[in-house]
């Protein structure tokens, strides 16, 4: 897949750093400000998509990237399920229990297990959207051409 012109590449280079920063901010501050795992993950995926579109790359490492994203996706989901099940192992027999200390409300480290969920849900959403986009791009390159 061939990339775009030099101008687009330079602009993307400058912007994608900001996009990732903003996405990570939205994910980590999910429990304080509006946003959260879903919105932040989608923004991070948008950043990656921008890079892939601007720079383009050969089908081979696109496919390698796709396997990586689908593996990160499964790992993130496994961690979420383990987090949910951790309540069972801590002897509370409760599924999806918020067992970490809450801390006081306005702070960054405050809402017990929720920020951790946010981070892994963000990872999972970003990896899923990226897998879908890569699936389409690989199909366009390989099968349609």
């Amino acid at each position, binding site marked *: 897949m061939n990339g775009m012109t030099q101008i687009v590449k330079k602009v993307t280079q400058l912007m994608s750093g900001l996009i990732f920063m903003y996405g990570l901010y939205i994910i980590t501050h999910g429990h304080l400000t509006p946003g959260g795992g879903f919105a932040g993950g989608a923004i991070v995926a948008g950043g990656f998509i921008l890079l892939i579109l601007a720079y383009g790359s050969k089908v081979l490492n696109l496919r390698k990237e796709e396997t990586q994203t689908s593996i990160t996706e499964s790992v993130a989901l496994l961690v979420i399920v383990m987090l949910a099940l951790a309540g069972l192992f801590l002897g509370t027999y409760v599924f999806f229990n918020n067992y970490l200390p809450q801390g006081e409300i306005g702070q960054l480290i405050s809402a017990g297990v929720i920020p951790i969920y946010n981070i892994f849900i963000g990872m999972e*959403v970003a990896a899923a*959207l990226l897998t879908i986009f890569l699936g389409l791009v690989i199909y366009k390159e390989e*099968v349609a051409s």
Partner: protein
Amino acid sequence: MTVYVMCFILFLVGLYGVLTRRNLIKIVIGFSIMEFSCFLFLAMIGYIENGLAPILKEEMENPVYVDPLPQAMVLTAIVIGLATTAMLLAIAIRIYKKYGTFDIRKVNELKG
């Protein structure tokens, strides 16, 4: 009340689009319009006149918050809508590759 009726009209416009359009992409567009009207309907149910956005701030005395539950439902439904649209588009491309057209009248090899 007119807001809810117009939201239902948007739902019917989407349903009209899905049932009558012959182009696969138009059907997917009609589909996402139906989804948007469902999200809007759910979000409107939870709205409370001059309520606040459900973000806690310290300096409120006894704040009236908008209902957070429909918002959580809509957030889940938006991602479900994204998942269904992605699946529909994947199949639409493959059908275009095999049948050569997006026109649903030509895409009916199944008979009986």
